[in-house]
């Protein structure tokens, strides 16, 4: 199944790149104003389209802080052999953590969609509806939003607004990338931290609670072999599910890391961009992003 899925993913990406290339050729006159070569634009378009597509995989993560809270609440009920008419879980702070994570995801997604459209000269199509709400400083469950995150968020929002109102159409694409890089790196790094150090670690706690809830069933001498078999079956099934979830989070976080490195490369070399170098460097990042995206998809 893995090779087929890999092929399907590559096909989808190539198809997207082909479509982008046709649209790109159709709007050639617009591209002249970017003062970047076609090959550079094509490479940047490929990188940003692939990044946008990979960032979108977040919607298929299938896990959230709220879901974690509910699952731990269920495990606690199992551990204490408690049955009520309704499982009462207080997960409001976890729900808030989800909404903050979603906002950060949306702004990064918006930026890469914008960069993809800008590199093919069609940013006027871009809508800013998803960027209406500003990020606020504060503590939201395990997530801390500091002033530097809020500042980065508004800088990207502002940049997108400027880009959609023509300012960047008169400038080089390089300036757009240069202005976005610092705030984007802050947001990508925060997003990666939330996933790897907050959400994934919550799952480590869940694994230990699962073990702690089920191990006594195996050790209790008066439990039947049937009880023990059922307990171990449920335990390993659930453990496998959590491990897969953690691997999915890691694959996604590695993808974000590659996207950040790709953007940093573009920023570092913005004054000396040569067609061949851009193509070669971005191909390497694109390949890594594709590989981690495929890892993510195959873990579902």
């Amino acid at each position, binding site marked *: 199944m893995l090779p087929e899925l890999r092929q399907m993913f590559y096909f989808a990406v190539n198809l997207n790149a082909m479509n982008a290339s046709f649209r790109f050729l159709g709007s050639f006159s617009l591209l002249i104003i970017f003062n970047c070569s076609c090959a550079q634009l094509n490479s940047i378009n490929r990188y940003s389209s692939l990044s946008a597509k990979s960032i979108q995989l977040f919607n298929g993560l299938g896990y959230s802080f709220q879901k974690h809270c509910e699952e731990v609440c269920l495990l606690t009920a199992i551990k204490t052999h408690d049955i009520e008419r309704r499982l009462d879980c207080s997960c409001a702070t976890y729900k808030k953590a989800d909404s903050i994570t979603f906002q950060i995801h949306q702004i990064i997604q918006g930026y890469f969609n914008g960069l993809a459209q800008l590199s093919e000269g069609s940013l006027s199509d871009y809508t800013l509806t998803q960027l209406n709400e500003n990020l606020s400083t504060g503590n939201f469950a395990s997530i801390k939003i500091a002033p530097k995150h809020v500042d980065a968020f508004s800088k990207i929002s502002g940049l997108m607004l400027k880009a959609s109102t023509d300012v960047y159409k008169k400038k080089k694409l390089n300036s757009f990338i240069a202005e976005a890089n610092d705030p984007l790196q802050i947001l990508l790094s925060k997003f990666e931290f939330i996933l790897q*150090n907050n959400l994934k670690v919550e799952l480590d*706690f869940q694994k230990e609670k699962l073990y702690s809830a089920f191990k006594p069933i195996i050790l209790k001498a008066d439990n039947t072999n049937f009880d023990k078999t059922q307990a171990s079956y449920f335990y390993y099934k659930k453990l496998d599910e959590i491990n897969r979830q953690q691997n999915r989070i890691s694959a996604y976080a590695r993808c974000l890391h590659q996207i950040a490195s790709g953007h940093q490369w573009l920023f570092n070399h913005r004054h000396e961009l040569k067609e061949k170098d851009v193509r070669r460097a971005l191909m390497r990042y694109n390949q890594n992003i594709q590989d981690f995206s495929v890892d993510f998809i195959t873990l579902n």
Partner: protein
Amino acid sequence: MANLSSTQASALAQIFLDVGKSVGDFLFQNWNEMTDEEREYVSSRQWEILKQGEDILAFSTVLVMDEVDHALSEIDNITADINSSIAHLQNIQKGINVAAAVVALGSAILSRSPEGIGESIWQLSQSWKS
């Protein structure tokens, strides 16, 4: 007195996760040597330690400590020592006392009491050395 950074809170939560696992290992390794009451007691303390670790993550941004780096280093050293051998303790009562002392430390951290944290670190160290 200073707030914990996100990275320091993650490290502290990891310490509680690790020591929670070790207390679980102590419980399950010594299962046949314990009475039902002892098992229940240790099991409940282990669950509390894990819950405290999750709460440290959840409330990480409002937690405070005196000389954060020093306090974290002390907690790390003592719990690393505990983790290395608690599972094979022959002295059940000592294991029980250590589990209770970890819970007391977690409570002091979550109630944002710098004095309580210092006292609890000392108590934990004494329980382990006794």
